[in-house]
């Protein structure tokens, strides 16, 4: 029986705590008597016979006819699937998407369906490369569909490739991929890493355009999503569900397939990174010391290559198919079962170790804007109830935060960093003054459509993503970050955690209470 997540009260005998620090680590001694560490649960048991579970889900869906009953000769079938941003790190081959898509295609073939398209539902993310697509769907599917133009990346800027399905009562445009919109059936293949993934967000966001996304990817929505991971208190969730209603009423039939994963995040020999520090054995301690020493001497590129080469041995814990909302209710419960950890009350300070990866830098560089988004957008929002840090408290992150950007993946991020953040870091002002010109920039549009660049507006979304955290906190400090970049983000640089706590004392006094969210593997706090 796996142990659930738990909260460790730090005392004098507590060993130093592991903090992620980009492509490296820091061991930090948290102040005894007033610090606590929220540890993730151990991995839930994985389903042993994945193929049987997939077949079971397709044949016995919730609130829907079995998939074979929805398939008929002459129909248009579109299989959409989550893009490279999920899961993190990428999973060991074979990817779950491959196994599910192969099962769906087998059923489609048996039903005589021959008009099938496969679409990577990447919204405004960068296009997936051939290697990434092959990893996601497998060589067999790739070779059968891609050469004939039947497996491709969603293109939200294709003037002939989008269809407006209608608007919500709140006036939100619902525009999705035209092929999907005109299909008799859309099968959506999801990998649910956190509670906000999946549901109507899969189609209403993954297959949407800027015209549609701007209705919920904005500062107002983000600030009124407390948190993203709590459907009942997420404006983002509500907007997607309103759009989902338009999709259900005016769009194609959607057969949703959602999967949940356990916490098996790190492959051998790095599994110990998921263990509690005092449980590391001598071999693991020696390995950590050696690894850290090696990493500290390694050039950034080499470190990046090592970390981005990691493939997670995730285990499947649930697969559910059928009607979107019914499926997602089950998925969410299962995600909570793995990730939710009860925590009593808030603290003055929240510390976060920011790792090398987030959804938007797979095989890429964690640039300063993504550091902000990962800390204040993702990790800060890993709560239900109340944030782990009190309003006006301090968030302390650890990350090198170098002024380094992937020139192919993140061109508009570079301009955002240089041209927007030098003017203001206020999300509202940024949205009003700059968003439109970036979103409609012809060059970014061209790079998004033909190269491997995130859409011009994407860095804005990253900034908005962290706007709730930014508004909530009195100060944000980055330990070990490049000072100039940290200041550009509007944050305060510090060399050590002790320095950071000293700096934080201006806001929270000299003996603040502290919570460290020991992420990853992912843990979500249920704050009472």
């Amino acid at each position, binding site marked *: 029986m796996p142990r659930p997540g738990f909260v460790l009260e730090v005392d004098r005998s507590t060993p130093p705590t592991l903090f992620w620090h980009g492509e490296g680590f820091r061991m930090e001694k948290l102040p005894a008597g007033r610090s606590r560490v929220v540890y993730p649960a151990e991995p839930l048991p994985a389903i042993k016979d994945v193929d049987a579970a997939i077949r079971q889900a397709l044949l016995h869906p919730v609130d829907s006819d079995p998939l074979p009953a929805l398939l008929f000769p002459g129909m248009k079938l579109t299989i959409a699937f989550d893009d490279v941003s999920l899961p993190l790190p990428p999973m060991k081959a074979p990817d779950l998407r491959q196994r599910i898509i192969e099962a769906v295609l087998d059923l489609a073939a048996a039903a005589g369906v021959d008009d099938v398209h496969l679409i990577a539902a990447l919204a405004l993310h960068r296009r997936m490369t051939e290697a990434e697509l092959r990893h996601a769907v497998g060589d067999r599917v790739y070779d059968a569909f891609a050469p004939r133009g039947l497996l491709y990346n969603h293109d939200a800027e294709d003037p002939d490739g989008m269809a407006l399905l209608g608007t919500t009562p709140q006036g939100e445009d619902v525009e999705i991929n035209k092929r999907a919109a005109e299909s008799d059936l859309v099968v959506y293949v999801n990998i649910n890493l956190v509670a906000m993934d999946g549901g109507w967000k899969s189609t209403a966001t993954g297959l949407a355009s800027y015209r549609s996304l701007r209705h919920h990817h904005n500062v107002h929505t983000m600030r009124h999503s407390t948190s993203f991971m709590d459907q009942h208190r997420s404006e983002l969730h509500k907007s997607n569900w309103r759009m989902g209603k338009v999709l259900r009423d005016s769009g194609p039939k959607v057969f949703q397939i959602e999967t949940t994963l356990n916490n098996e995040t790190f492959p051998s020999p790095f599994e110990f990174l998921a263990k509690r520090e005092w449980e590391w054995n001598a071999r693991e301690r020696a390995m950590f010391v050696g690894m850290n020493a090696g990493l500290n001497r390694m050039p950034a590129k080499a470190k990046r290559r090592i970390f981005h080469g990691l493939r997670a041995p995730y285990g499947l814990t649930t697969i559910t198919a059928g009607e979107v909302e019914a499926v997602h209710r089950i998925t969410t419960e299962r995600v909570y079962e793995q990730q939710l950890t009860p925590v009593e009350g808030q603290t003055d300070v929240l510390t976060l170790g920011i790792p090398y990866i987030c959804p938007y830098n797979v095989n890429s560089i964690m640039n300063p804007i993504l550091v902000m988004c990962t800390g204040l957008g993702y990790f800060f929002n890993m709560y239900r109830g109340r944030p782990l840090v009190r309003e006006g408290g301090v968030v302390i992150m650890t990350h090198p935060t170098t002024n380094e950007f992937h020139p192919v993946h993140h061109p508009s991020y*570079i*301009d955002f960093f*240089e*041209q927007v953040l*030098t003017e203001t870091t206020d999300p509202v002002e940024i949205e009003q003054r700059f968003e439109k*010109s970036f979103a409609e*920039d*012809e*060059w970014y549009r*061209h790079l998004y459509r033909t190269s491997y660049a995130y859409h011009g507006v994407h860095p804005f979304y990253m900034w908005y993503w962290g706007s709730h955290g930014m508004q909530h906190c009195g100060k944000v400090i980055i330990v070990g970050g490049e000072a100039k970049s940290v200041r550009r983000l509007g944050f305060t640089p510090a060399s050590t955690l002790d320095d950071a706590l000293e700096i934080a004392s201006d806001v929270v006094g000299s003996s603040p209470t502290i919570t460290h969210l020991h992420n990853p593997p992912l843990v979500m706090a249920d704050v009472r």
Partner: protein
Amino acid sequence: MKALQLDRKPARFVAANLVSRLAPGRGASYGPLALTDIDPPELPGAGWQLIRPRLSGICGSDLSTVDGHASRYFEPIVSFPFVPGHEVVADDADGRRVVVEPVLGCVARNVTPVCPSCAAGHLGGCERLAFGDLQPGLQTGFCCDTGGGWSTFMVAHESQLHAVPDDFSDEAAVMVEPTACAVHAALRAAVEPGDLVAIVGAGTLGLTTLAALHRYADPGTVVMAAKHPEQRRLAKELGADVVCEPNELGRWVRRLSGSLAYGNQLTGGADRVIDCVGSEASIAESLAVVRPRGRVTLVGMPASVRLELTSLWHREAELVGAYAYGTETVRGVERRTFDLAFELVQSAGLERLVSARYRLGDAATAIEHAAAAGRRGAVKVVFDLRMEKERNR
């Protein structure tokens, strides 16, 4: 009289060239510049008078000369030994404050008839810089007959003198000559209303050109590449719409012009680029960000540079120089550049650009300061002659 004099000493020029590569401005200590006691220059003829400098600026061209980097192009149009200093506010023979317009054109040289350029009022284009009653010298401060502002006395022709209004401080007055260069450059750039203009460099020339653009042209957006924090602050104050680091200029211009790109090459670009640095890198950058058929105006004094000109050819861009001043046409009216400069110095408060004053005896420190002005938070460094004893005898 006390003067900083520059003599033709090739070995000293070589030493200055070498040492200044390690520490710009250090040529003042190792090069051919020396503080000397010499006789005041004789009056070259009718219309000339002895004047007493009050303030005299240190210009980029002076630094280049002192550090031994100036182009050999100038050899036929300078005469040694000379006293540098062409940005001068002085007391004339009648005790009035005057600003010197230093170009030594046909009138000052007593050349008759005057050359076509001088006849047209384009003094900077004078074709007789090595002829007439004076030894060669493109300007006061580069001619052995006239002396220069880095001394307690010099001579000037009446045609060179502009009376300083009473409400002008000496600091404002010493900014008139560099501002006149900037006014000429801004007009030479031929900016059309609404144009996207990029200015490379935010030293004295860059900042005064920015001010001139706003007063005498009608640019749409002005983006300025400035290296140092104080330069960036001043650029904002003087009206730059965008102030960026030099390495960010290309990306700014791309976005502001709505350009696409081939790799790092823009498909479009700025309508006008004004290069106020004049280095190999700045000219290359200027050519990289100008739009097809756009214009790059070279204001900063270059020397020998190596350039890739394929884009100039392919994009049919213009590369034009902007030197000195004379007569300008502003909104259909002909005006003397210096008159426009007086107006601009006052309206834009350009006296604030004078950052530091030094006595002649501190020349080495002054020149090193001027050479590192941007980095040290300064803009214009000047010699202050007002307290020199012999001047006030």
